[in-house]
């Protein structure tokens, strides 16, 4: 009797999650309770401006507000942004999309009681965009288009851009852009926020037991009135996936915000039935294989294309989605974005076609033509199970089908990065593009040989030229056409980087957790102000 229930429970639970948004407001929201959640990574410093890990975002983000954010009621949309510290609608670009004026809320206070004004926002963005010498800012490069940021009134901030850019608003919406108090920066210096917290978020900081947990409590003076619903939260550190899973099962934690493999979801649903709700979404991360073009024969586009043609992406999607956190076949753009390729457009790219036998035959022909029918490759992988090692094992098997033998070297993260970035000691390496806010025009720079996070070691003037046109394209239709051209060049014709599959985010959680909606990134929608517990 038990088994058939499992089969139906899954789609049902997923379906429930999707209809959640509408049902939510109808329910009476309950206040109170403490949300326990598990975090699979460790906290570096608290300074969002210099860190880049969800290990910091999940426990620390709820203490801060940002100027704008992804719409918490519609986080699935890659284009829906709303005000957090600003007021009213998002500013429309003025002056040919080169000037943005934000009206700032007047009812915001930091946790220490200091009222928030335009000066705090300006000081924050100056620290991010124009940091003083010797002060790091991890995402400075996202704001290349910004010319100046000034307070044009006590509650008004004006950004002036050097050129119009579709990636400006998404960049401002990044969850890392915590707004700090100017007085803290002035009196304590620019490194104070590494170990101290004073934000204006929904929760105020209670304590941090390094290595164990972070605790926050409801901030009564929060500017979104009536929120947060929770009395507090506890972010518990649990580096082992199996333990995080068990923690939810044993109700030591109600949710994990990064994502579980499909099988883990099935086990939880099987064990706990309707006590578990599952939310799923495409994930703004893609796993890539990067050939090293400074090494022969990977300077030959035919060899790279063969490696891409060997992959049965559509088939791989079917079974990898059973065992790994990857699923969707896609090109360079996040699959649910208007700029992404449709399936019809996708299958035209070499290696993305559905006829696997033909693809592989073509791959073997290309290898033979290039003079490397029995290629051996030194394959650099990262020592993390999900999804790197699982997909790595799949890749090796796929390449074996065209007679390519890959010897895998799985390295701990620091060694992996050193090989990828510095010593370039690999033939082909696992690589990935994982961003927070979906911002295709910025995200696809990954494929440019000149980009800071591209490790293929190549120069492709034609691709750079296409990108510069894309950057300046005015309408969405125009952007779309140029994007296709860019995609065909980057991953088709030249196969500079070989995309595998887009990640797939699965968040099974205790059904009593309400109000939280899955976003396409584990960095997004983590302010926790709209979560409530139905207990």
């Amino acid at each position, binding site marked *: 009797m038990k088994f058939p229930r499992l089969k139906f429970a899954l789609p049902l639970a997923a379906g429930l999650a999707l209809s959640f948004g509408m049902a939510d407001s109808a329910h009476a929201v309950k206040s109170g309770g403490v949300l326990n959640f598990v975090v699979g990574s460790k906290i570096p410093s608290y300074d969002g401006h210099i860190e880049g890990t969800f290990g910091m975002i999940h426990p620390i983000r709820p203490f801060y507000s940002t100027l704008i954010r992804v719409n918490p009621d519609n986080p699935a949309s890659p284009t829906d942004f709303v005000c957090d510290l600003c007021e009213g609608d998002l500013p429309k670009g003025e002056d040919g999309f080169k000037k943005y004026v934000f009206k700032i809320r007047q009812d915001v206070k930091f946790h220490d009681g200091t009222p928030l004004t335009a000066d705090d926002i300006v000081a924050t963005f100056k620290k991010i965009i124009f940091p003083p010498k010797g002060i790091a800012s991890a995402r400075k490069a996202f704001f290349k288009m910004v010319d100046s940021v000034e307070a044009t009134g006590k509650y008004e901030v004006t950004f002036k851009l050097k050129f119009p850019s579709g990636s400006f608003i998404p960049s401002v919406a990044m969850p890392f852009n915590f707004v700090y108090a100017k007085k803290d920066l002035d009196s304590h210096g620019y490194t104070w926020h590494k170990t101290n917290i004073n934000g204006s978020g929904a929760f105020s900081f209670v304590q941090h037991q390094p290595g164990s947990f972070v605790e926050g409590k409801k901030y009564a003076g929060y500017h979104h009135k009536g929120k947060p619903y929770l009395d507090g939260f506890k972010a518990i550190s649990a580096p082992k*996936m199996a333990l995080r899973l068990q923690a939810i099962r044993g109700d030591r934690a109600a949710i994990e915000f990064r994502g579980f493999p499909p*099988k883990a979801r099935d*086990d939880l649903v099987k*064990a706990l039935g309707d006590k578990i709700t599952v939310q799923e979404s495409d994930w703004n991360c893609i796993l890539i294989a990067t050939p090293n073009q400074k090494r022969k024969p990977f300077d030959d586009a035919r060899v790279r294309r063969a490696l891409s043609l060997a992959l049965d992406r559509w*088939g791989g999607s079917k079974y990898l989605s059973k*065992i790994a956190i990857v699923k969707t076949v896609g090109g360079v753009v996040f699959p649910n974005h208007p700029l992404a390729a449709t399936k019809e457009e996708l299958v035209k790219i070499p290696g993305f076609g559905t006829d696997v036998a033909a693809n592989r035959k073509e791959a073997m022909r290309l290898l033979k033509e290039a003079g490397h029918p029995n290629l051996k490759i030194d394959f650099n992988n990262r020592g993390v199970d999900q999804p790197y*090692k699982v997909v790595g094992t799949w890749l090796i098997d796929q390449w074996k089908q065209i007679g390519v033998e890959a010897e*895998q*070297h799985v390295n701990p993260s620091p060694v992996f990065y050193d090989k990828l970035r510095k010593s370039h000691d690999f033939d082909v390496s696992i690589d990935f593009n994982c961003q927070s806010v979906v911002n295709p025009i910025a995200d696809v720079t990954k494929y440019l040989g000149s980009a800071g996070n591209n490790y293929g070691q190549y120069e492709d003037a034609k691709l750079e030229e296409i990108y510069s046109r894309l950057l300046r394209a005015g309408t969405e239709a125009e952007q779309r056409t140029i994007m296709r051209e860019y995609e065909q060049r980057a991953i088709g014709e030249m196969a500079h980087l070989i995309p595998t599959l887009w990640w797939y985010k699965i968040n099974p959680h205790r059904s009593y957790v309400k109000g939280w909606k899955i976003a396409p990134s584990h960095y997004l929608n983590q302010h926790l102000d709209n979560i409530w517990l139905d207990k």
Partner: protein
Amino acid sequence: MVTTSEARVEAAFEELAVERPLLSKVKEFARKQPLGTFGAVIVLVMVFSALFADFIAPHDPINNSYEHILESYSSTYLLGTDQFGRDILSRIIYGARTALLVGFTAAIIGSVTGLVLGVASAFFGGRFDLLFQRVMDVFMAFPLIILALAVVSIFGTGIQNVIIAITIPFIPRCARVVRSSALAIREIPYIDAARANGFSNARIILRHMVPNVMAPFLIMITAFVGQAILLEASLSYLGLGVQEPVPAWGLMLQGGAEEYAESAPWVAIWPGVAVSLAVFGFNLFGDSVRDTLDPKLRSQ
């Protein structure tokens, strides 16, 4: 030019190694050490499956079969399949190969190096011994797994580096024991006699000291094999050991096995049983060897 003292010494050794029919020796061992015999049987089964894996394994251990992901026990897959549709039984059988390769190589290299260093240290004594002891102290004080972690991080993963990582901590442990046994022998008059007869250092070490520390040495080796297998499994579990798709027990337990432990318990149970049994067998056998060779010798 055989002197009387040397002849006497050698005669003494020969007496120790009087040849008896092998079968009767085995019988006696089995009678006196039933546990050890049980251990030896496990070890033999393991060696057998490692040597003849190609013939006894029903499937290719690295062949992915996506239609058969995480299947339960069946006549085709006796112990079920893992998350890549690979046959668990075949991977366990081939895994014995990896385990024994790592176990024996690490144990033999580690203890032979330890033997040479320990004997040399005892023989030369003085400053060399003092310095050498301090170096060994440093390595002893480093927790075993920590040293292994560092080696793997520096040289990368892969079977030969796993062997290096496991071997290094064995050296000081063996050298210590060998040194103290050798020191005791050094004081015995016949070494003095050998020295007085003008034998070279190398000859004295090799012909007289080494044979005398053989008992503790053999005990160390058997203990190390079990430890090495366990360490390899632990390192693989931490993601620092042997890498996919090589069949290895620790690796089979890592990652997937934990996540699937409930819905596909065969993925998590059988490799664990294999590791436990193997280490159990080697330890039982090693203990009995210890009892047989040197009933007085204590732990380590």
